């Protein structure tokens, strides 16, 4: 028997597999396909203070080994998520969930986190700092160590739950930003969010995505994600949730060797709805193949 159990800030997970925010909705569609309680946890769709329709369509473009999305944080707003979605989620998923929180100002992050902090169903608050800061010319919070730290402090001040800051990969020095978040009190780091990308439609000569650019994810970005997880692991002591292009049990092991304690699966869920189930089921076999008996033994193994 192999051990796939890992622990994130005191929260035990049966396995490190966590669907990534925005690619699993609130779990309902997947719960119709398989028992999603087999998952380590799941990170639900990014939530903001107000309800958002998101960006105009087209919001999706295809790429080699991946896709671009510009959904733009479509969600019903934090109050409705707490009132309507959390109770529904509890029916299909009985473990602690990860609440993915977004904001366009420091106050919005704090507001949402404070609200969600009261929900015992929520195990971890995952703070997506890839959103543009409306007060500072639209640069994303995740692009400066100071801004990311400011959000971290504001959220930590109003919550008792573990706070994971989810970093944007569109930066020069990911380690510096992770370090700033750790110093500001973050309990963990999630990375990577999507790479900024663009596709142009040759038939119209214009960008495919209505918003022009969008977030590029899927297996194509895996090498960038592994590199960043590796770099952040060297920079911080807090646990890392690694993601970006993971689509097989082998990829999970690679992410963990780079330094991840748990691993999120994003775009793979969309094109392969059973992706997480398949990965969880094949994980023990692939572990055996590489002589791994306990996943905890390999976390950060590539650094030794």
């Amino acid at each position, binding site marked *: 028997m192999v051990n796939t159990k890992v622990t994130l800030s005191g929260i035990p997970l049966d396995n490190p597999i966590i669907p990534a925010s925005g690619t699993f*909705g609130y779990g309902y569609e997947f719960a119709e396909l398989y028992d999603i309680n087999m998952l380590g946890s799941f990170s639900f769709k990014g939530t903001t203070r107000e309800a958002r329709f998101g960006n105009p369509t087209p919001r999706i473009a295809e790429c080699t080994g991946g896709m671009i999305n510009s959904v733009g944080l479509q969600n019903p707003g934090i109050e409705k998520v707490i009132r309507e979605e959390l109770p529904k989620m509890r029916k299909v998923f009985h473990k602690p969930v990860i609440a993915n929180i977004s904001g366009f100002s420091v106050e919005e992050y704090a507001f949402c986190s404070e609200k969600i902090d009261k929900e015992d169903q929520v195990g971890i608050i995952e703070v997506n700092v890839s959103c543009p800061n409306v007060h500072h010319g639209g640069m994303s919070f995740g692009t400066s160590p100071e801004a990311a730290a400011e959000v971290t402090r504001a959220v930590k001040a109003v919550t008792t739950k573990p706070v994971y800051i989810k970093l944007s990969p569109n930066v020069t020095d990911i380690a510096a930003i992770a370090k700033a978040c750790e110093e500001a009190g973050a309990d963990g780091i999630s990375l990577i969010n999507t790479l900024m990308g663009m596709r142009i439609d040759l038939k119209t000569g214009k960008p495919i995505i209505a918003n022009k650019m969008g977030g590029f994810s899927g297996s194509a970005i895996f090498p960038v994600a592994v590199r960043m997880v590796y770099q952040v692991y060297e920079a911080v002591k807090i646990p890392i949730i690694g993601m970006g292009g993971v689509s097989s049990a082998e990829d999970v092991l690679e992410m963990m060797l780079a330094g991840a304690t748990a691993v999120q699966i994003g775009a793979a869920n969309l094109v392969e709805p059973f992706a997480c189930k398949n990965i969880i089921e094949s994980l023990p076999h692939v572990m055996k193949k590489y002589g791994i008996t306990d996943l905890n033994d390999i976390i950060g193994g590539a650094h030794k």
Partner: protein
Amino acid sequence: MKQSRFTILKNEPLTSTVYRMVLEGDTSAITKTGQFLNIKIDGLFLRRPISVCDYDDKTVTILYKVVGAGTEAMKLMAPPSQLDILTGLGNGYDTTKSGSCPLLIGGGVGVPPMYRLAKNLLAEGKTPIVILGFNTKDEAFYIEEFEHLGAKVLVATSDGSLGTKGFVTDIVSNLSDYTYFYACGPEPMLKALSDCTKTSGQLSFEERMGCGFGACMGCSCETKYGSKRICKDGPVLEKEEIIW
């Protein structure tokens, strides 16, 4: 929704760019015409959504136009190769509202879902009028198939090479005794139909999709009753809820 492997039984051209593919597999998740399949194609990341044209308890028929990498690859597939397909996606058309004499309007690759819909309505004892629009005679397909069902078929071509010269709306505007309408085709056609029809109706929309089963919000559109996912809450919307 189900995910399963289908075996290609037939894959044949109907025109120079439109193909018919007959697939054998588990069709149990398909409950309505107007629903679609989401087809995995080797080497491409996203699945390709294609409407159900017809189905029975072990086969499903689709008609697709070759427009890019995915459909180009599909065109080259031969029996008995297999495809990984998600079935039972989308709401599909609701025939309970049709009344006795509904119009079924298909433009270009919007034609396929009308086929099974016509079949069902005829089976329910209704007398659908099928109106098909194409650019030109050479691009027309499935007219005979609709006629064989016993439906009344009217055709419009933009260049007048077959049937009425003009658009499906030119035909629809001259009709009056219909009880309802069902439409699928390019968005400008749907918009024009929404304006020129005298009854209520159901229209099917296309959108670029991430998942096709409601998980990603990639295909959202705003309706009068709030945001809907074309893939899950659609692709069929009621005329009254659409915001143009």
